[in-house]
Every structure is written in structure tokens, then in C-alpha cells.
């Protein structure tokens, strides 16, 4: 009886998004572009600001400067030291966060309508007039060094670092964006100002807003907030050459459970085959309990708590990656099963049911992402970073729907290669054949 109901429901298709999501292109009087969704039901606005380039714009020998700079933006600006800035933020009940990844510097702001102008004044000070006082830089440096030290002993961080190094070598992608203890200790206050100038410029800006604000209000806000930033920053870093070769690398580490990261070449989001690869990945390892790897490695054999794969199309390189953790005595078997599933997927043979389930999941899950102002603002920023058109939300599911079994076969055979899969294992794996490793 239940199966019958399910079959009926599965053929329903969701329109996208089921509530009209009216994304407006806003150009400020000063020429800044932003995407806006007006939502006046809750009296606050979520604002997302991105600077392309992120930590990969660190100057040579200055690894970690952009991370340290971003973490120090809220530690004093204009007339305010760190505590005065924090007190002012608390008094307005505004929420600001500053974060960096390989491709972007991210600023998130949540501001109440009742005091939005004051909140913008405050954020403006941090973005255009940060003090980077020596004492503040040193204090945050101490926190970063503590994280670097912790990462030295954290199996997940060790695995990530080893994989990056193997994949990208000397490119910024090849090392931690926190820098090393040595590079971070050597950073001067001038390096921090320089790091800001390299990344926080108007020529690499992406902006989105969702909430209780009109296009005209947003335009004025943006010019005030960002208009005084420099026009240009450092040139974008070059593309990264992927240096991965198939095999297993083991980092010996005394822990009861081995951490494994694996990966091979991926593909960029503008590749015509991207959506086929996206569906393949769903079937292979991203579908939670529905994925082949979860079924084979966890459900059937109990070799892990969880195994996942994902496409990682970064701005300057693309991989197809995955990860899991297994007891030292079981990790060899888990790797063998993973490699076998990778090879099986590479034949491109999928059942109608697998393809259909993956597509209904992906198309059904998409509109569910759009709940909450903060959530939507983040998605709109991501769409712009990936150069998607403003009507992308209306066309995206059709692209998933259009993927055929033939596409799956062709793209899986083109891209997936179990022999090219590199495993990085951190732990004390037993019985693992590493003869192919370098």
C-alpha cells in the first residue's frame, strides 16, 4: 500500500520555486551591481558580500595573510578598538561575519530594519577603515597559530593537507589558507594592509541581499558601504595544474580509525556535461543512504559510519572527491570496495530506477533550499560567483531533467577512472597495498 502511494507521488513534478522568487537586478547610483529579493515579512535584511580570489590572492611568501586580515577586520575600525566595535555591534543587535576560502572572501551581515543605517555605518568602518592595530593583529595571530597547531595533529586536517599538496603542489590551492606557523609568524602589520588591498576591491565584488529593503534603499546602502573601496586589487591567480595520479598515499598516524580522502580530475560548472556528472555523483556517493557507496560500504558491510563523494568545481581547478573513515583493520577493504564501485560507475551503466530517483531527488530538493532570507542570500551570491544568469533558478531543474541514460554512459566513461583515483589515508591501516603510491 505504501509503495503504491510512493509511486503516485514520485511522478508529480515540482515547479520551481513553488513560491515565485522575484530576483531583481539592482544597480546602485554609483554603479555597484547586486541581486535582491524583497521580503518584508520579517524586519531585517540579510546582506552577502563576496570578493573573488579569496585566500588564493595571498602574495608570494605571505601565505595566511588574507585569512589573518579577514579575521582582524572586526578587531577595531576608525575610532573604535576591538571591544568598542563589538559593543557597538551588540548594541544594534547586528550580526557580522567574515570568512575566507580558496576562491572568495565572504562577508555576511544581518541587520534589523529599525537601525539598519547605523549598522551599515559600523560595517563600513570595518570594510574601509579597519585599524589592524598591532596588538589586534598579534592577538588574532595567536588564535590562527593555535588552529595551525591543532591541524598538525588532526587526522582530517592532515588528510586534507596531504591531498591538497598532491593535487596542486605550489599553487595556493596546494597549501592551507591559514598558512604555516612560520609564514604566519613572519606577517607584519603592513602585510595585513597589503592583503586587504589585494582582495577587497570593487572589480571583484559580488553582492546579494534578501529582506526588508527596497531596491532604491539597497542602492544607496551599497554606495555608502562599498563605494570607497579601491577600484582594483591584485591580478587573479593562475589556473592550477592538477598533479594527481592514481594510487594510495599513507600518512602514518597513531589513531584507531583511518581517515581517507580520495579524488581524481573533475569538471568545471560550465562544461556541457556538468549536469550529467552531477547526476552520476548523486547515484555514486552524494545521495545519502540512497547512494551506491553508502549501500556497499556502510549498509552492506558496516565498514564506515558514512561515505560521501562530491564534485568540487573551484574557480581555478576541478576535482571529483570523496571521504570516509574506517577502523584501521577495515580500511583496506573499504578502499577496495570504493575503488570497485568507482570502476562500476565508470562503465556508465545505471538502472532506470537509479536515474529516475537521482533526478527526482535533485529536482525536488532544489526548491527546498530557498527557505529563509539568510539562506537565499547565500545562494544568490553563489549563483553570481558561478556566472549564472539571473533566471537560473527557473532553468536549472530542466537541465537535470534533460540528462539521459546515454548521457550518463558517455560522461561516466569520459570522466571516471578508478585507476586514476588517488587515496590519501591517515592512520595505521592494516593490510593496505600501497605499492602503487608515490
Amino acid at each position: 500500500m505504501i509503495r503504491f502511494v510512493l509511486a503516485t507521488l514520485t511522478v508529480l513534478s515540482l515547479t520551481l520555486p513553488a513560491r515565485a522568487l522575484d530576483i531583481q537586478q539592482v544597480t546602485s547610483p554609483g554603479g555597484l551591481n547586486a541581486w535582491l529579493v524583497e521580503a518584508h515579512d520579517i524586519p531585517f535584511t540579510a546582506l552577502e558580500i563576496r570578493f573573488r580570489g579569496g585566500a588564493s590572492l595571498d602574495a608570494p611568501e605571505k601565505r595566511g595573510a588574507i585569512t589573518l586580515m579577514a579575521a582582524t577586520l572586526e578587531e577595531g575600525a576608525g575610532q573604535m578598538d576591538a571591544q568598542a566595535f563589538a559593543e557597538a555591534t551588540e548594541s544594534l543587535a547586528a550580526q557580522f561575519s567574515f570568512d575566507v576560502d580558496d576562491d572568495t572572501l565572504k562577508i555576511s551581515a544581518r541587520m534589523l530594519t529599525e537601525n539598519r543605517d547605523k549598522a551599515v555605518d559600523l560595517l563600513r568602518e570595518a570594510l574601509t577603515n579597519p585599524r589592524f592595530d598591532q596588538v589586534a593583529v598579534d592577538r588574532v595571530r595567536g588564535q590562527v597559530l593555535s588552529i595551525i597547531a591543532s591541524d598538525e595533529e588532526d587526522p582530517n586536517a592532515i588528510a586534507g593537507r596531504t591531498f591538497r599538496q598532491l593535487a596542486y603542489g605550489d599553487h595556493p590551492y596546494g597549501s592551507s589558507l591559514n598558512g604555516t606557523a612560520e609564514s604566519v609568524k613572519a606577517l607584519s602589520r603592513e602585510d595585513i594592509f597589503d592583503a586587504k588591498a589585494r582582495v577587497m576591491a570593487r572589480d571583484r565584488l559580488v553582492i546579494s541581499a534578501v529582506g526588508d529593503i527596497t531596491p532604491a534603499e539597497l542602492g544607496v546602502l551599497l554606495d555608502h558601504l562599498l563605494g570607497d573601496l579601491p577600484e582594483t586589487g591584485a591580478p587573479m591567480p593562475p589556473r592550477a595544474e592538477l598533479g594527481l595520479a592514481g594510487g594510495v598515499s599513507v600518512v602514518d598516524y597513531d589513531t584507531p580509525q583511518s581517515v581517507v580522502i580520495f579524488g581524481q580530475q573533475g569538471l568545471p560548472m560550465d562544461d556541457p556535461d556538468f549536469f550529467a556528472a552531477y547526476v552520476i555523483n548523486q547515484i555514486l556517493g552524494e545521495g545519502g543512504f540512497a547512494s551506491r557507496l553508502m549501500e556497499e560500504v556502510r549498509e552492506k558491510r558496516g565498514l564506515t559510519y558514512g561515505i560521501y563523494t562530491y564534485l568540487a568545481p573551484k574557480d581555478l581547478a576541478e576535482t571529483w572527491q570523496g571521504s570516509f573513515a574506517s577502523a584501521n583493520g577495515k580500511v583496506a577493504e573499504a578502499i577496495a570496495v570504493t575503488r570497485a564501485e568507482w570502476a562500476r560507475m565508470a562503465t556508465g551503466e545505471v538502472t532506470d530506477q537509479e536515474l529516475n530517483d537521482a533526478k527526482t531527488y535533485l529536482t525536488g530538493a532544489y526548491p527546498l533550499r530557498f527557505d529563509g532570507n539568510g539562506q537565499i542570500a547565500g545562494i544568490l551570491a553563489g549563483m553570481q560567483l558561478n556566472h549564472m544568469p539571473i533566471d537560473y533558478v527557473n532553468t536549472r531543474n530542466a537541465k537535470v531533467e534533460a540528462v539521459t541514460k546515454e548521457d550518463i554512459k558517455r560522461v561516466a566513461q569520459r570522466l571516471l577512472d578508478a585507476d586514476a583515483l588517488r587515496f590519501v589515508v591517515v592512520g595505521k591501516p592494516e593490510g593496505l597495498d600501497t605499492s602503487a603510491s608515490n
Partner: protein
Amino acid sequence: MRAFFAAAVAWLAAWPVWAENVTHFTLDNGLEAVVIEDHRAPVVVHMVWYKAGSADERRGKSGIAHYLEHLMFKGTDSMAAGELSKTVSANGGSDNAFTSYDYTAYYQRIAADRLELVMKMEADRMRHLKISPDDWQTERDVILEERAQRTDSDPGALFGEQRNAAQYLNHPYGTPVIGWRQEMEALTRDDALEWYRRYYAPNNAVLVVAGDVTPEQVKALAQTYYGPLEPSADIPPRVRPQEPPQLAERRLVFPDPRVAQPYVSRSYLAPERDPGNQKEAAALTILAEVLGGNPQTSVLARKLVYGSGTAIYVSAFYDGMAIDDTTFGLAAIPAADMSLEETEAAIDTALAEFLHEGIDPAQFERIRTQIRASEIYAQDNTQALARRYGEALTSGFSVEDVQSWPDVLMSVTEEEVMQAARSVFDRRQAVTGYLTRPAEEATQ
């Protein structure tokens, strides 16, 4: 930077508001239900919470509540193992479950027009679970891998487990939710089924549905799918062994070669929120915010991070949502040239000064401003709101308790916070822990 102990600052975001959109009803078979309306997106979160958590386990069977949670995905008379998750996923939804000391909960997040589908499956497994003889041992391997991943591989998690065990002399809150490894290894299918039969029934559950739904819709569906389920006549009362007077301070040193960043923590036994009487817990909640909530402006940050430079990070945390006595916690990461002993001494000095100086009225006012604002921001996250109601109702609180919580917080005076501080900081009831590298390496 706010990379450490992120959970400690989560309390601001999670406060319930919006009482006008919350509906509460109880079916004839005893199933309590809460509906939270949010029509901004065509999404619904469907949750079933059971009033059964690890603190209800029999001694020697630690981990059974969590193990059963895993086995709940192994099928029923009418669903194959794994079918529920696959069906949810094939309909664009996601599902999962979680276990804590006082509750076990299952949820799906899916398009609002598929609520009936997930409710039907969730109702089915409330009374008709089937665990095939093939599945249970594999799943026991999975929970052991989960323990290895979350706990055994993480010295901070192991340290927390040991501190907690030392904190509770008698109460089962001292036993980890996931279980002690040697007891997990011995859990059986019969243990799981016994647990299931004892606790999984409509009159021991709370249904929470949040999102693009109306109370009428939910009521009709709940009546159809949960209504026919038989209540259980013999659900045991939740009377756990209570703490005796704690008379002796406990101190732990946990050396582990995997520790790169040592830290010191201190926890004090503290009263929990009580249904109908939340004032003291509200004062402790604000005390945690005053002492360690904000990494720049809190009392401990001012004294230890910005003042003496003893620590690079400090935190204070308290979560009163529990059935029995909970804890008030403090933690500090020493600056590079400071020892754990010096850091602990600095914390104690700071606490003594605070008890003498009292609360800065400006800070108190800023915290109140944020309490008010959190009611606005909370409206943007319906799923968090759903969790708040589920957690409260399975811990013995009423909808009114949840809804009055912001007002109770706002009614707390500075003097009440100080009174709570004087009462909670009793070293005889405290556990102090050092997480550190083994001795020969400790000097670096």
C-alpha cells in the same frame, strides 16, 4: 575568530517566538502535536520525538537508545530496510535522526505537498518496526565506526566523556549517549527490540510539523496515520537515580599525544530549567552570556584575552534544557607562553573579581537588546524553532513554558544573575579538567 567551541554561542539564535503561529493539540491515543506555520517557502519539516533517551537506559546497556535509532531505518512489515530514506530522497527530501540524553528524534524535510507520504511512513515505524536477523550486526559495526569517528579519534571528545563521567556521581547523564565501547559491542537485537517495545508508542511521543502547512491539515493527517496506533499501557516513569550531595571537587588531567592545543575546562553542577519555573535557569543563561558569550566584550574575554593576555580564547556555556541537573561550563585556551595552571588561576581570579564587581549595566543592556532581536532573527529559521519545541516537550515542558522563555529572560535582574553566580560557583560540585600533551612534550 570564533573557531572554537562554536556550540557555546548558539543559544541566541534558537529562541522561540511567534506564538501566534504555533498550534498545539493532543490525539485521543496520547500523541501530542505542535504545528508551526511558516508559509514563506513550500517546505515542511516533519519530526517525531520520543520521550526516551540515553539517560533512560538500563545500566550495562549504554548506547541502546542510539543503536535503536539506527535500527529504526531497517524496515517494517510494509517497508523494506532503507526504503524510508530512499523514498524521502526520491521525493527530493532529506531525513535523519538524533539521540540525546532525554530524547530520540526522527525527521524529514520535504516539499510541503509530500507531508502525507512521510507521515505515513513515520507512523508505520512507530509501532511496526521489523529488524531482520541480517541487519542488526552490520548496524552495530556502523555505530562502533561512528563512535570511532566522533569520539575515539578526537582527544577533545574523549576528554569530554571523562569529565562528564566525573561530573555525575550517580545520574546517568555521566554515561555517553553513544555508549561505552565495551557495552556497545555486546548490544543485541533483543536489547533493541525490548527498548523499542518499552518506549515507542504514540502516548510517549511528540509530533512537530513546521512549515507551509495549516493546523487543520496536520490534524487531519495525524488523525489518519497516527490516530489508529495503540498507546502503550506500561511506559515507565522517567525517574532516574539522582545526584547525592557532591562534597568533593574532582580534577582530571588527560594527556594525549594527539593534543596540539591544550586547554582547561571547568564545569559546575547546575540546576536545569523546570517546567513552570524557569527563572533560575534564565539567570544562569544570562550569566553564561555575561561571562563568556561574546569573544570581545564578555567578562572573561575582557579579563583574560584583552586584559592579562593569559588566554587566547575563553568561553562560558549553560543549556538548561534537561530533565535533571545539568552543568554550567567554562573553558579557556592558554596563550602560547602560559601554562594550564596559570590559566586556571586566572579564571578563578576573574570569577572572584566578577562576584565582587557585579555586572556592567551597559553590558547587561546590550544583552537584553540581543534577546529582543533574537526574536526577530529566529523567525528566519523554522527548523530551529521546530527543534526547540520538540526538545522542550519531550523534556517535560509545556508550549507555554517555551513561549514564555523570552519574557522570563527579559525579567531577570542583574541581582538575580549575581545570585545565580554565587550559588552555582561551588567548587565542591565542580570538575576541572586539563587536556594536555603527554608530560615529556608538554614544555614545547
